[in-house]
Every structure is written in C-alpha cells, then in structure tokens.
C-alpha cells in the first residue's frame, strides 16, 4: 500500500511537471509541442533523477555517519563545487559545459581531501573525523571563494552564486542522458551496501562481529554517495533539504531497513524535487523561484504531518 501510494505520487508529480508550465500549452498539443519535448520533459526527468540521487546519497551518509544531520552537502562538497565554479569564471574557462565540469571537479577535490583526512587515524575511516574534516574543508573552500569574489570583477562572479544555487534550468536531454548513464553505478553500490548499513546502525564493533566488512562498506558508501552528489551539483547546483529530510521521511514510513529505505528515498526524493520544481516554475510565472526554497516550503509541512502520524524517526 505504501509503495502503491508512493508510485502514484511519483507518477502524479511527473505528469504535473509535463502538463503545467508558464507557457500555456493545450492538452491536445502536449505530444507535439517543442516546449514540452525539449524543455519540460527533460527537466521533469532531471528533477526526478537529481532528487532521487540526493535523497539516496543522504540516506547512505546518515547510515554511514550515524548522524541524523548528515546530508549530501555536509561533507564539504558544496564548498568544493562553489570554488570550482568561481575559479572557472575567474580564469575564464569557457565552453558550454565549463561550469558543470568545474563544479564536478571541485566537488571531487573536496571529496578526496575529506577522504584523506578521514583516514588519518590509521587505516580506518573515522566518522567523527570525517564530519569535522568535511566541515573544515567546506569552510576553507567557502573562504577562498569569498576572497576571489571580493577581489575580482564583482558582477560576473555574483553570477557564479546564481549558477551554484541555480536549480534545474540547465536541463536538456543531454544532461538527463549523462545522469542516467552515470547514476546507476553509485546507486547500485549503495543498494548492495543495504545489509551492512543495517548492521552498522548497531555500531561498528557489533557490525564487525556480525560479519560485515565495516571498513570496506564505509569507504564504498562514502565514495558512492559523494559521486552521486557531485554529479547532482554539476547538473543542477546545490539543492538543499532533499538529501537531509527525505531520508527521515522515508524512515518514518518504511522503518530502518536500508533494503526498503534506499529505494523509497530515491522515489520520494525524485517526487519531492519534481513537485517542487513544477511549483518553482509556475507559482510566480513568468518569473521563477529558486527550487531549493520550494523544496523546504513543500517538504517541511509533509515532514511535520508524518512526524505526527508515525512519531520520532
């Protein structure tokens, strides 16, 4: 029943995203309109993929770090991506794909740095060290970014922030294809780690006694979640809230088993972001709201409702 409802919600969100938009397109012309074919449909699919990727990455990281505040951007990835974008603009790296590639590279740089710092206490990844390292790397990247922005031509670099918080306006069949080819690998790695993540919830010692290769699971979950997040940043900038709260929403309804939790988070995150983006495009049309604002405006009431119904996560 829960799965049916979730499926219906996902289908409804995708349907609404295709039917609704600032340009009035009659239902009869939905199949032939280039606006629907080239803009709305890829944007709806990209929103679903990005939302799903962020929520799944958040679920994995919360399980790995055993911290309810973990979200895909907590470990310095947004800071790294921001630095990449600002550097790309400041150094004039052009090309139509300049900024997405720079954001991806920046996020990957932050990931490698945090990973290395997480390993300082011997060969084991220490979640507490990683959290601190993530926050530190993020703060450092933000400081360098701000320094560049305040010293260089202002108008151009302010646009870097617009891009970074820009949402899904860059959607096209190409970005959908890139994500559709790229995301399944880290998603599969996370899905394969479902059982060990369940064990990890008991603590590292008990998980080890129950047969989990804890170090390997931690490494894989961290890298897979970061790779998903870096790709999401590259195609849509930093979108908050989805990766933080959708895992909790899913946990309220599906419990703590990652086998059900991860797919539920993927579909739930995709649904929430698709819905939020449709609202962002339409409520103040022809203007557009930043989608991150809408995810919070839509997500928080849903969260409050589920919290009342199912109790604390």
């Amino acid at each position: 029943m829960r799965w049916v409802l979730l499926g219906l919600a996902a289908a409804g969100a995708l349907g609404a995203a295709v039917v609704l938009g600032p340009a009035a397109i009659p239902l009869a012309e939905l199949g032939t309109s280039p606006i629907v074919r080239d803009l709305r449909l890829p944007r709806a699919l990209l929103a679903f993929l990005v939302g799903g990727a962020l929520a799944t990455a958040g679920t994995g990281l919360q399980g790995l770090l055993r911290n309810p505040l973990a979200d895909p951007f907590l470990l310095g990835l947004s800071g790294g991506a921001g630095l990449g974008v600002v550097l790309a603009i400041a150094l004039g790296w052009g090309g139509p794909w300049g900024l997405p590639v720079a954001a991806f590279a920046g996020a990957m740089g932050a990931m490698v740095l945090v990973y290395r710092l997480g390993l300082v206490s011997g060969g084991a990844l220490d979640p507490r060290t990683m959290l601190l390292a993530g926050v530190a790397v993020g703060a450092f990247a933000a400081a360098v970014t701000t320094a560049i922005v305040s010293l260089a031509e202002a108008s151009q670099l302010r646009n870097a922030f617009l891009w970074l918080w820009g949402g899904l306006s860059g959607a096209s069949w190409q970005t959908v294809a890139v994500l559709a080819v790229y995301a399944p690998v880290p998603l599969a790695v996370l899905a394969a780690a479902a059982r060990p993540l369940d064990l990890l919830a008991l603590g590292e010692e008990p998980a080890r006694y129950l047969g989990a290769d804890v170090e390997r699971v931690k490494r894989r979950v961290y890298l897979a979640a970061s790779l998903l997040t870096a790709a999401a940043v590259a195609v849509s900038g930093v979108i908050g809230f989805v990766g933080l709260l959708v895992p909790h929403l899913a946990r309220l309804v599906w419990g703590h088993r990652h086998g059900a939790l991860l797919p539920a988070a993927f579909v739930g995150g995709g649904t929430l972001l698709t819905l939020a983006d449709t609202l962002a495009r339409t409520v103040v049309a022809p203007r557009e709201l930043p989608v991150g604002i809408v995810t919070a405006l839509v997500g928080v009431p849903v969260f409050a409702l589920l919290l009342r119904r199912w109790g604390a996560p």
Partner: protein
Amino acid sequence: MLVGLALLACGRGATGRPAALAVTDDAGRRVNLVAPAARVVSLAPSLTELLFALGAGPQVVGRTTWCRYPAAAAAVPDVGDGLSPNLEAVAARRPDLVLLYHSPLNETTAAQLERLGIATVLLRQDRHADVARHARLLGVLTGHPGAGDSIGRVLDSVVAAAAPPARVRVAIVVWDAPPTVIGAGSYLDELVTLAGGANVFHDLAAASATVSLETIVHRDPGVIAILPDADAVMPPAWARRPEWRAVRAVRAGRFLVLPAELFGRPSPRAPEAVLELRRLLARETTP
C-alpha cells in the same frame, strides 16, 4: 555658466562671502555647501562619468576601481570599492564632497563621512531620468550649473522625441543559468523602447528577473540582446547548450551585442546609445 564661474571664484574663497549651495539628494537629505566642491571623490562609475561630462573632471580627486570611463578617469587616484568603501582611503584624499550610490549600506557610510566633516550626497542613478536630474544637481554642487542644465536638456529631449514604432521584439539576457532577463525596471528596457524596440519582458516590473526558459521560447523574441564581458566570444558559449537551442532566435544566431561601456549603465551618452541601438535594430528588421 557665468553664475558657475562666479560661484567657483567664491569657492576659491579669497574675498567673497560664502554663497550657500543647497540641494536635496536621493535619500531626501539636505546637502549644503558654502562653495562649489573643489575636491570630489566619486564612489560610483556612473557618477564619475557624469562629473567628467560636466567638465568637473579636474575636481575629481578619487574614484572607484571600476570607474573606467572616460579614459581620463584612469589618471584619478583609485580609492577601492564604491559599495562599503574604505573610509580611510576616501578621507585621505581630503575631499570636500563625496558622491555615493544610494543604498542602505552607503547611508551608514555617508553618516560616517559626515562625522569627519566631509559633505556627502547619496544618488541612485538607475534610470534615464536620474541622469538628467543628477546632471543638474552635480552641476550646482561642482560649480558647472550651465553644463548641468544643457546635459539635462539634451537627455530630456531624447525622451521627448517620438520613438519609432516598435518593430523588433527583443529579449535582453544577462545570464544564462538560471536564465535572467531585463525587465521594465531597468535602464536597458528604457533604451530599447526609445530605440524603437519592444522588450518581450516589459511586463516584469523588476530590473532583472529569473525566468523559465520555456517562457523565453513561448514569447519568441526576434533577437536576443546581450551585454558581453570584455573578452566574450560571439555567439556566447551558452548558445551551444541544447536547452537554449529551443529558443528560435538562439538557433538562428540572432544576437545583438550591447557593449557594456555604452549600454551598461545610465549615462549622459544615452543619446549616442539610443542612436546606436536604433541602427542595430534596423539591421535586424532588414536581414
């Protein structure tokens, strides 16, 4: 002009009794000078340009890093940024008048400078009509009231002259991701209208706004105007991105380049800008 010279003579202050110059700035503050300002620091590029146009260039003793027009402005000492300026650097120029862009933050800056005994004016030069008003105001404060009046009259006449009927529908795109366009609140929208074009986003009251790409496709402008950076390539790199190819004018490569130096800010060269834009738009109607 004679009055100006008389005031200037007064300002140099050898003999005369102090003549009071009083204006009201854009923050609604009364600004009184006993004599035309002889040492002016301008903390906004548009105001620096206006000072030089008034013939007050020799009185400018400080400018922002971004004041690059006219070329003579480069010879004026640079005091840094115009928004949250470096007060010490400004005061070190020993100005008797500081021009600031009118923003809430700069109201605090103005109060701080006033405490140092330096007169300030807060001016918000965002629209075409602001330039004419500021030309007259700064003409009085710098002792060039005649020049201020004549610049004001020329700028007023640009508006009074009947604009040709709008034939070209224009979208002014200032940023590609998220797509950001110029609305009715901007000086550029005024220029397009004066030049006989129609901004397809004239219904947006804001100066600029983020819009959906599908809205641009739907409104189907005949030409896309952009303000390129100095080293920008044409057409812009984003024109090759697949989502932008959905816009007909982008596919057809109908781009109009508005050099930021002439079009980027409200300036006394508006008549020149309008003529140039009219020429560019005429070229678009006869392909």
